[in-house]
């Protein structure tokens, strides 16, 4: 009986086409926006911060839901601003964003109805 049961379970095990189906449904990690944001680093500072950002996104932020009311999220905003304006202005701009990261002034920003988030790009 045990042998038969084991054989039956093997028959119903996942096949290649099932895995392919699941792969098409699931969003691969390459498609996440934070992977895209961390790409195209032009210097060592950007690479270090992109690495830290990916570490935060993969191990800390991923353990919880996305609570940031903005799109892009504060961490994505920070890394984008750092790449756009340089290290000093980028970090200061990120701090300003942290101060603004509250739902008190929604009238100041555009609203994305799909994600239900306020749009604020660096």
């Amino acid at each position, binding site marked *: 009986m045990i042998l038969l049961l084991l054989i039956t379970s093997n028959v119903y095990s996942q096949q290649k086409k099932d895995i392919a189906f699941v792969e098409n449904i699931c969003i691969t990690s390459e498609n996440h926006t934070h992977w895209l944001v961390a790409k195209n680093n032009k210097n060592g500072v950007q690479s270090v911060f992109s690495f830290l950002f990916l570490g935060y996104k993969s191990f800390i932020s991923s353990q919880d839901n996305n609570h940031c009311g903005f799109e892009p999220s504060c961490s994505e905003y920070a890394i984008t601003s750092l790449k756009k304006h340089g290290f000093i202005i980028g970090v*200061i*701009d990120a701090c*300003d964003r*942290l*101060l603004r990261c509250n739902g*008190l*002034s929604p009238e*100041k920003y555009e609203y994305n109805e799909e994600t239900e988030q306020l749009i604020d790009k660096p």
Partner: protein
Amino acid sequence: MQKWLLILVLFTLQKMSYSQNLFDFDKTTQYAQYLFKTKQYKLVIEELERAVYLSPDNDSIKSVLIKTYLIDEQYSEGYNRCKIFYPETSNLPNSISNTYLTLLIKLNKWEEARYLIASCNSLSDEMKKNYEISLAFHIYDVKYIENIYLKNDTLKYPSILSFDPLVKIVENEKLKRPGLAAGLSTIVPGLGKIYAKDYKDGIVSFVFVSLSAWQSYRGFEKRGTKSVYGYIYGGLTLAFYSGNIFGAYKSAKKYNRELKAEVSSRASKIVSENLK
């Protein structure tokens, strides 16, 4: 046999006499009109470009083509076509000059717009005045706007009076100075944002900076200069404080941008209403 051959030839000739050229000027413009009514502007442009090719001297077709470029928000393309059609702006027909001027304003080509207003013969003096004021609103040239009203041009050109509400806005709502906003936030965190009319964000900035500074002070007071707690909160305070200064600068710039955009769009609406 000859009889049948004759019938066949006549039949063919008869069919040829009834054939139609779908791509001639009349058919092209008719189809363009249908596309325009159904708001398929990209296709309208294709049809009208053919119409212009078939009848290069037809100004009304060129006018509709440039207007379609404007409606479809293809400002640069419309501007380029206009430049090719009329290299000399003084010869612009009346039907095109208004559209061309709107294109120049949309593309922020202020100098060219000023030159066009001064040089275009087809615009009436009143319309020229209208456009001059509208341009001043787009550039947000407060002195020029006030000067026009002091010169009593409003008596000569009554349509200018419709700009009255906008003049009041410009007089009452002064542009914010980003440097001053940053300076105010340096003295009191959040004050620059309040100056830029971001009241809520100003209060949040003040609370965040003062709370983290107070935590840092508590840490240093209890454990002296060896307090890790004090340094962590001190760093946080420095970050929030810098962010608050930069944020005030950005807020003032954003306020100016939004005010200018609102005034600019209202000025365009007034001009198009005066044109009717």
